[in-house]
């Protein structure tokens, strides 16, 4: 099975095309405004009316762009799953998170209430959330950003989509939860064997999770290659500039952590 993904020509994203294969993780890297989120939303067809898209996006041979709205809705969730940047805003603030899960799963699989609860509880256990049933009865504002993000991952585990799109899943979190969410995302991939598109501006995160990298800037794909290639020998000035920034912080930090013998000043 092969997932094939191909976007061509957009108002903010020009003639970009890439593909993700089963079980691989593609990272889209770029600064804010480079069109990475728009690309993701284009795949999900969640862009606003003002944004128009052309070209084809194919998932397992099905052209998503040609699906009707109802079919697309069925595809989202079942085959495509989006993990958003801000957990607080991703859940309906006026209902407990559990009811959100129930709605989603009922929509896609038609499971019974108890079935959903037990499956969700299991999934939430696997993302290391304790006491899942109690958590499901809480409202989004009672939970931390990291927890919400992990619950979204749990939902993704239950949904078993073919492709998970993670749009800056850690940018709004602090270091500790960032780490946990990253761990869970990696585990999620191992568990479901699904393909993943991981969007981020942070290259060190990308290095941990991605197999392939697409570097975007101003709506254009600058570079495309495997993670190892990009990190060891990038050809682009811009990619180097992105790498450099994070590297220097990392190097400084590692030096400090490595003890006094490495400190350069």
């Amino acid at each position, binding site marked *: 099975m092969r997932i094939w993904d191909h976007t061509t020509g957009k108002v903010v994203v*020009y003639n970009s095309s890439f593909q993700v294969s089963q079980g691989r993780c593609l990272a889209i890297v770029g600064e804010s405004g480079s069109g990475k989120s*728009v690309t993701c939303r284009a795949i999900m067809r969640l862009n606003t009316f003002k944004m128009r898209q*052309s070209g084809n996006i194919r998932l397992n041979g099905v052209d998503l762009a040609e699906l009707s709205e109802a079919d697309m809705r069925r595809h989202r969730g079942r085959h495509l799953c989006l993990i958003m940047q801000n957990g607080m805003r991703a859940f309906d603030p006026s209902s407990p998170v559990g009811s959100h899960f129930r709605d989603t799963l009922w929509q896609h699989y038609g499971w019974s209430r108890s079935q959903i609860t037990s499956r969700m509880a299991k999934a939430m256990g696997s993302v290391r959330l304790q006491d899942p049933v109690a958590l499901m009865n809480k409202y989004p504002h009672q939970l931390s950003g990291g927890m919400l993000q992990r619950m979204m991952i749990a939902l993704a585990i239950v949904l078993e989509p073919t492709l998970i799109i993670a749009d800056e899943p850690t940018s709004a979190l602090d270091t500790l939860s960032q780490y946990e969410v990253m761990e869970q995302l990696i585990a999620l991939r191992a568990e479901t064997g699904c393909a993943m598109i991981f969007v981020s501006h942070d290259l060190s995160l990308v290095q941990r999770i991605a197999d392939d990298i697409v570097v975007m800037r101003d709506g254009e794909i600058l570079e495309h290659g495997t993670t190892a290639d990009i990190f060891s020998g990038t050809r682009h000035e811009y990619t180097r500039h992105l790498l450099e920034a994070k590297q220097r912080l990392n190097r400084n930090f590692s030096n400090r952590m490595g003890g006094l013998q490495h400190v350069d000043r």
Partner: protein
Amino acid sequence: MTIHRKMWSDKLTAISLTVIAMVAFLGICAPWFAPHSPEQVHMELRYASPSWQYLLGNDHLGRCVLSRLIYGIRPSVLWVLAALLVSLSFGGILGILAGYFRGKTDQMIMRVCDIMLSFPGYVMSLAVVGILGPGIQNILIAFVIMKWAWFARVIRTSVMQFAEADYVRFAKAIGVGNAVIIWKHILPVALPDIAVISSSAFGTMILQISGLSFLGLGIQAPHAEWGMMLNEARGVMFSRPELMLAPGLAIVIVVSAVNFCSDALQAALDPKLQKNTRKPLRGQGLFPAKPKGEEVA
């Protein structure tokens, strides 16, 4: 560019402002502009069509519609506007205080608001009119009492979101006084919201006055008022629809002029909404489209 110059530069706004100014002027100087006495009955001219002498025709008692329309400006527009301003400023001040200072101030003001809002509007105004007796002044008093709590609530919510903004925090940090912060940093930004709610309240208030007049509690019978004119014309809605047209259009025109003005105020204040600004540089989806991008749905 100053705010009022910006507003004048937009044609629709300029027209709206002119309309409002003209209406206000007509209302104030009604005796000079009205061709006839608004209360003079000509039974022989009942339901007369427009003529050169009576430009908009005559109503069911043969009174001059145009004159009644002009005299009607006073209660329908000017007094409503006055009542609106009073309740808006009262509610606005309390709302801003509650939204800005939060804490106990907020708690107290909001509880009072909740109590006020828990009475249904019409019942409340009926009660006030019942106590004070019928008449336009008393209805206006009832409106002020009824509406301020609602204004306070809405304005508080709007102010609250700006009071949390980082630029307000910075101003506090460098020691700008609270009054200055409210005046310069919060009020202008909250003004569009305030303008929108007040322009919509303006429309409902005109209609509510007519509703109360209909019950015989508002304007007393011979006096002219737009809402009452509508009511009087209602009886002959199907045979002589044009009688409804004059007061109806007048209400629509004034209310939309006020609405346009509130929109324009927002556009004049907010640099993001200005047509003549340079293209925004950044932000989601704001890149200038390059010609090579194909635009297809």
